[in-house]
């Protein structure tokens, strides 16, 4: 275990209370790729932001190894050990500054390196993420989407983090580029002994890289298991729906307009009276579990 969350909750109090993250127990193992899969609004990005300390949880705690990082005193532990790569790489780099400057801010500024030293150091890193070193003094808009995403990855690993959160790192890219980025990520994981939290809505892509997957719906984890088990035999109706949709077999979902109890009850074709109450935890084996009455 390198990171875990304990009964993590984040509610937003607007007109109605939005339970963005509602009692999540997530576990990231060392040197593994843990995936978090769910659709827009399921709370996956809020969860990532909680881990990074951008939000304070309403309830629950997060541990990095044995250090409680939800404690404000330990903020530096987050900065030193966890980094994130976002979906749209153009948004994560300053458009007015060269690539050199973006990397400078990430590492050299902190360590007070001299410009000459930093330059060589950065070129080394650019090589590691597979781009030519002559792009160092270019601006983000002069690079392609794939190149800029490689720069964001370089910037994330330049601080030597232990965990990398990848929030839909390839959804912005063409499929051919996306596959190359996945290959790069696999390689970096070994070379830098990184652990990944790979956030995505695309189960097929997740299958290419992940070891273990958490499926999220309505702020809750509804099923979790080793990736191949989930693909071979999923138990939760929502996971089954996601798998069907990935093959375009899903024609139409009917919404039943029922509230309370199981989060998926509104859409679940198998719902019955008992679903009004929180669903029980069922274990397939010690690694694979889901929450459903069935």
């Amino acid at each position, binding site marked *: 275990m390198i990171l875990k969350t304990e009964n993590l909750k984040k509610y937003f109090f607007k007109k109605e209370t939005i339970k963005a993250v509602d009692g999540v127990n997530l576990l990231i193992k060392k040197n593994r790729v843990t995936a978090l899969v769910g*659709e827009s609004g399921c709370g996956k990005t809020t969860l990532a932001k909680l881990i990074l300390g951008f939000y304070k949880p309403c309830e629950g705690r997060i541990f990095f190894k044995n250090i409680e990082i939800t404690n404000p005193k330990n903020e530096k532990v987050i900065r030193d050990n966890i980094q994130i790569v976002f979906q749209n790489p153009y948004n994560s780099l300053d458009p007015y500054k060269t690539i050199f400057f973006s990397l400078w801010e990430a590492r050299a500024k902190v360590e007070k390196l001299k410009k000459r030293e930093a330059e060589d150091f950065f070129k080394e890193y650019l090589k590691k993420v597979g781009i030519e070193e002559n792009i160092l003094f270019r601006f983000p808009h002069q690079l392609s989407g794939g190149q800029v995403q490689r720069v964001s990855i370089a910037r994330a690993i330049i601080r030597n983090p232990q965990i990398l959160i990848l929030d839909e790192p390839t959804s912005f890219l063409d499929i051919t580029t996306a596959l190359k980025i996945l290959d790069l990520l696999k390689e970096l994981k070994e070379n830098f002994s990184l652990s990944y939290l790979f956030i995505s809505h695309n*189960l*097929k*892509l997740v299958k*290419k890289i992940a070891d273990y997957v958490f499926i999220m719906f309505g702020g809750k984890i509804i099923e979790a298991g080793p990736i191949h088990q989930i693909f071979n035999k999923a138990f939760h109706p929502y996971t089954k729906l*996601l798998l069907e*949709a990935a093959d*375009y077999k*899903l024609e139409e979902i009917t919404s039943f307009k029922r509230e309370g109890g199981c989060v998926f009850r509104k859409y679940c074709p198998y719902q019955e009276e008992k679903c009004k109450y929180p669903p029980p935890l069922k274990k397939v084996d010690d690694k694979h579990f889901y929450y459903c009455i069935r």
Partner: protein
Amino acid sequence: MREILRIENLEVEYENKVKALENISFDVYKGEILGVVGESGSGKTTLALSIVNLLPEVAIKKGNIFFENINIFSLKENELNKLRGKKINFIFQSPYDSFDPLQTMANQFREYLKEKLEDKSIIEKVIYDSLKKARIDNIEEILGSYPHQLSGGQLQRVSIAFAISTSPSLLIADEPTSNLDVTVESQIAHLFLKLKKFFGLTIIFITHNLELAKFLCDRIAVIYQGRLVEIAQVEEIFNNPKNSYTEFLVDSFKRVE
């Protein structure tokens, strides 16, 4: 006449001598879904915009585009306006950008149809029928909503309803599902199939998603760096690609499968 659209030697060049499209010729048959597949910057959208002559002023166009035997490039602006958004209609990628955030859907739909329909008395009926065809159940609720109150999937269904309300003979859909969740994408893909099957609509479906194109389309045109590198039946493209770029694309697709 089997083809509804014929493109002959289309070439589009921007002022800095960049050729966005070069030497493109193909036909679109009545009642088919033709997929236009390519990566970002390959010229897919430029191709779609040339069909209704919506290219920027600075673009230099060569070649001919015949829609139901009328040469689009020879039409005057007011004649073109009779085609655009009527006989040929569009669906775009981001449904949030296609609507006025300050108007209810009902108002927007009425305004939209006031321009397009000769007979104003049937507007309400056309609205209702189109939403029905786009398989929206809670019509009243949707019509009373503002865009931000609807989900991406609901809004994309409404855009489809708008697009089919003018009884177009050709629908051009530019990445209509790339902003949507997987479960919604699957449902919208099925909706396009139904539109083809039940209403005989001809659809040009632009996408970078090969898997979706394989599921949805009858034929696929592969665009690479502004050129049409291959056009064939879906099975041909996937099982027996002739062009090396097509082969490369199909291989990447198979790696994900």
